[in-house]
């Protein structure tokens, strides 16, 4: 009986082995082995995603949204400390070469110890709906996850994206972002980017788009978007073609007066029927996006011969035009691509502002008033109390016109330097003119800061100066030149803060005895001592009593700090009993440092 039962068990086991051998694979094992090593996980301090290797020397493609710092104040900056984890769990620190938010693509570079295995590319222009595909990535942090499906649509154009995207029913979850979508032969069709509601609705940036962007990132560090500056184009769907009296073409919805294409003779209502002799007649939005992609990736500075069909007294006549292709002007933060419009701000006053570009006026339907646009207001700040709001245009300060960022800062800082209690401003809010007044709090009123700067200058000196100024401090800048700088030049009786401005470990600030003398004297008089980056070393070198105080410094000077016996914590900003130090690694950290410095000085 036992023997009988054992034989049944044995047969059962054998049949299981046979079934395992006969298991059919949707993705053959050879393909899994082929693509697996090329897919990577990407991590940074906020989140992470996926990516894939495109060259043996370590170039990696991913999504823009995986690596962006996501800080409206610094729209062009990528996240710091990005780590790439290879299929075999080796980890590398990556540099972001460039990224774009739409199309959602980024290029990263790692320096591997040995050549990596890059992916192969499919031709994403020649794909068909229904073909098999599979995605690989790190959904919700689960590395090496394969999901399969078909291409559900290859012309998805109604998501408001800048290009067509592929749609797949292969499961795409958070963390798949940036990972590859492969065809059944293991060649990359595109970069998985996001899923939208519902079930099994995933979207993929076609690889031909991503590879064009890769070239832009390598050449310029960003996507140089070109086109006809500035007009708004669109497809001529059947009803539009019928009512316009054309058989097809690209409708020119709007031509902005004064821009290059307006000067070249393009008019709103024209229909572009041929470009460089090739007829164009996009009927659908998908076809139009293809036309637009071709236009957007042309070399700026070149020209295009176009034929337009123009309405002349009720009749359509062909008109030949030579239109210049220009790089698009700066783009306000709106998700299209990281624009190079910088958001400036006065943290102490509580608002940010930008230059007003043409697209800013178009996006936000602003009037033609000159000035600067307010991009954000902190609650409970002087700006909020003055009733200044997002998208307001500041047109005047004390009845003097503001024409641009430079004039705005000049006018404002002249009053901040005098510590004017109330600064009248005129604001244009849509069609309304609004007068208000900013009452800075000057919480550092009457205090003086001395900034010691090395000969080579200091990257964030301007930011430090204006923030301290906006908070009511007088700022004196002293360059430390060996032999020329003397501690006697600084009368510490009139000084409340001494700030060592440097981030390089080889600076003269760390070796200059006169600087040490200033530090010792300032410490003896219980002044606030602050240091950026490696210059923290000067504090502990100069005054042994400071070895007990918690300090931080730049990572490359951390070893020296420990050797000197400093109480090094490694935080971005550190403060203990009037000693404020920072790694100074970026603008955001510098802002935190200035805030802490001001709090300590108060």
């Amino acid at each position, binding site marked *: 009986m036992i023997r009988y039962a054992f034989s049944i068990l044995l047969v059962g086991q054998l049949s299981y082995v046979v079934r395992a051998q006969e298991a059919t694979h949707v993705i053959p094992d050879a393909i899994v082995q082929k693509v697996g090593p090329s897919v990577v996980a990407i991590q940074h301090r906020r989140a992470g995603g996926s990516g894939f290797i495109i060259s043996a020397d370590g170039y990696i493609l991913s999504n823009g949204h995986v690596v962006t710092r996501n800080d409206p104040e610094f729209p062009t900056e990528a996240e710091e400390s990005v780590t790439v984890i290879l299929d075999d769990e080796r980890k590398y620190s990556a540099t972001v070469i460039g990224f774009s938010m739409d199309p959602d693509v980024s290029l990263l570079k790692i320096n591997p110890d040995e050549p990596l295995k890059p992916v192969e590319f499919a031709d994403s222009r020649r794909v068909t709906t229904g073909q098999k595909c599979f995605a690989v990535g790190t959904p919700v942090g689960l590395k090496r996850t394969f999901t399969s499906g078909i291409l559900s649509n290859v012309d998805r154009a109604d998501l408001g994206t800048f290009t067509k995207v592929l749609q797949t029913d292969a499961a795409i979850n958070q963390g798949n972002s940036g990972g590859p979508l492969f065809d059944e032969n293991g060649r990359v069709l595109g970069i998985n980017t996001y899923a939208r509601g519902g079930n099994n609705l995933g979207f993929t940036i076609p690889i031909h788009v991503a590879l064009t962007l890769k070239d832009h990132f390598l050449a310029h560090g960003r996507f140089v978007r070109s086109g006809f500056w500035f007009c708004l184009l669109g497809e001529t769907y059947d009803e539009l073609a019928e009512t316009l009296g054309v058989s097809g073409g690209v409708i020119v919805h709007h031509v902005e007066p004064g821009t290059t294409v307006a000067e070249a003779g393009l008019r709103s209502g024209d229909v572009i029927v041929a470009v460089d002799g090739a007829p164009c007649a996009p009927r659908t939005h998908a076809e139009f996006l293809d036309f637009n992609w071709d236009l957007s990736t042309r070399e700026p500075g070149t020209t295009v011969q176009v034929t337009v069909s123009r309405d002349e007294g*009720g009749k359509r006549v062909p008109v030949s035009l030579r239109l210049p292709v220009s790089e698009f002007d700066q783009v306000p933060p709106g998700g299209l691509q990281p624009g190079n419009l910088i958001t400036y701000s006065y943290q102490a006053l509580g608002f940010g502002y930008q230059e007003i570009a043409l697209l800013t006026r178009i996006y936000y339907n602003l009037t033609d008033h000159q000035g600067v646009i307010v991009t954000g207001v902190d609650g409970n700040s002087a700006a909020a109390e003055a*009733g200044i709001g997002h998208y307001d245009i500041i047109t005047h300060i004390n009845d003097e016109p503001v024409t641009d960022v430079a004039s705005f800062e000049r006018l404002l800082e002249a009053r901040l330097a005098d510590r004017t209690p109330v600064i009248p401003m005129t604001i244009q809010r849509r069609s309304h003119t609004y007068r208000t007044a900013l009452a800075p709090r000057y919480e550092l009123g009457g205090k003086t800061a001395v900034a010691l700067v090395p000969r080579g200058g200091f990257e964030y000196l301007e930011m430090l100066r204006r923030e301290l100024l906006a908070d009511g401090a007088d700022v004196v800048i002293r360059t430390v030149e060996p032999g020329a700088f003397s501690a006697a030049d600084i009368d510490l009786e009139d000084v409340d803060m001494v700030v060592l401005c440097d981030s390089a470990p080889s600076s003269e600030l760390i070796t200059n005895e006169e600087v040490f003398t200033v530090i010792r004297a300032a410490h003896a008089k219980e002044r606030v001592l602050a240091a950026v980056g490696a210059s923290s070393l000067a504090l502990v070198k100069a005054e042994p009593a400071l070895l007990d105080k918690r300090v931080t410094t730049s990572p490359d000077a951390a070893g020296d700090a420990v050797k000197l016996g400093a109480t090094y914590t490694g935080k971005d900003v550190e403060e203990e009993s009037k000693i404020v130090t920072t790694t100074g690694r970026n603008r955001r950290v510098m802002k935190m440092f200035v805030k802490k410095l001001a709090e300590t000085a108060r």
Partner: protein
Amino acid sequence: MSSVNGSPLRAVSYMTMAGFLLALLMTSGCAGLGRGQSFAGTARSDLIRVTGKKQAHLVHVAVKTVTPERNRRVGTMIFKTPASTQTAEYTGITVADGNYVLVPAKLDQDSMKDVSVWIGEEDSAAAFIAYEKQLGMSIIQIKTDKRLPVLSLTPRSEAPSGQWLAVANTSGENDYFMPRTGLYMVCGRRPTFYPELVIDGIGVANRGAPLLDRRARPVAIVTSPGTAVALSEAFCADLSLFINKSSLGEPEDEEDDQGRLGICLQPINKDHAKFLGVDRSSLWVTHVLPDSAAAKAGLRNGDLIVAFDGEPLRYSGDRTRKDFNWRLAGKKLDPFSLTVWRDGETLTRSCRSDRRPEPVEFQSEELGVVVREIDENAYAHKNLAVRDGVLVTRVLPGSPASTSSTFGKSLIQTDDVIVELNGVPTPDVSRFRKVLEDVRIARPHAVLVKYQRGRLSGYAGLNLTIGSISNGAAQ
């Protein structure tokens, strides 16, 4: 306590001590506040005198709420909870002529059928007027021939901790509603949106009752057990606006209300007022509509309104504007004066609001849009780039104007300005209608619309064979 310590004697001694401390606290409270604010030496007769002064202003409001039957699931079992009725009782304060009564509860039209009101022992009907979310208070109107005296709720400095206050209540009591008349001590404050006083021991039956100082002036209103909202400047300002709005009737539209005078206003920032030396409540004129009553009265963009009909403006921030609008609405078409500050001088201007004709509106069933004339008001408020055209105020769902090849993306959108139809300009509604009549006669398959959207122009081809109107004709 006794069971823990195992000593009944010790428990008694604790209780005695607690009683002694309480007595000491009460004595010191009374004695300490004897300098004007306390109820030192208050006898029951004094208390009745103080609270009795306000009894005529108060009514008893009982709100019955019905909780419907519901199912409660526990594991796989379902228990039925039968419908139940609760009655919440409040003291209502008469706050405006016409028997408008303030109740600290969220009421609505539906709840009024289950509301009972007693004035003294007399039962009366009441109508719901309004509820204000921020204040958490409703106003009802009592339907009675009696004229209830109005209790003025004016700002008082906040009662400090330790001050004794008397709670005033209605004269009527019944089996269910027995508010306690008595003295209560302020135990603290809560820095909520409207500062609240913590009133130890005040119960649920006192909700809505005013708390009075020894001169019978209201200083707070009980909102929930243990809590009363202080009659702070902000609370009284908002309450006053709410009472005005409720008792004077609601103007049709605030924007429309401004449009009658033809100005847009912005409250002055207090630092700016100080800088200009205009140390009082005032409103900037940020926009004057051409040909409006304000323009005729000589008001200009940049004027600062400091007084309405000789009375200085009140409050600060947006409350000033709301108060101004209410006073303006009250004037209707009567003349009034505005005192404005302009370049350091104070000028007085006579004004009279005018009734501008409502802009002509027209619904085009063929296209599926509702359009209206662009008047100065719309031009300014919508920040339009063109004047010659018709403003789209609505796009009808499923119509040619709303149907594009992308689901959910309308070809024509609200706030677009239609400037041409089939190449013919449509500068106003009558021309728009005329062109549409031509379209109706010609019955084309599609119509070309040129529109302005913000700063951009655009073209749309509307398929007239789709949409509810055209379906029958196209078959």
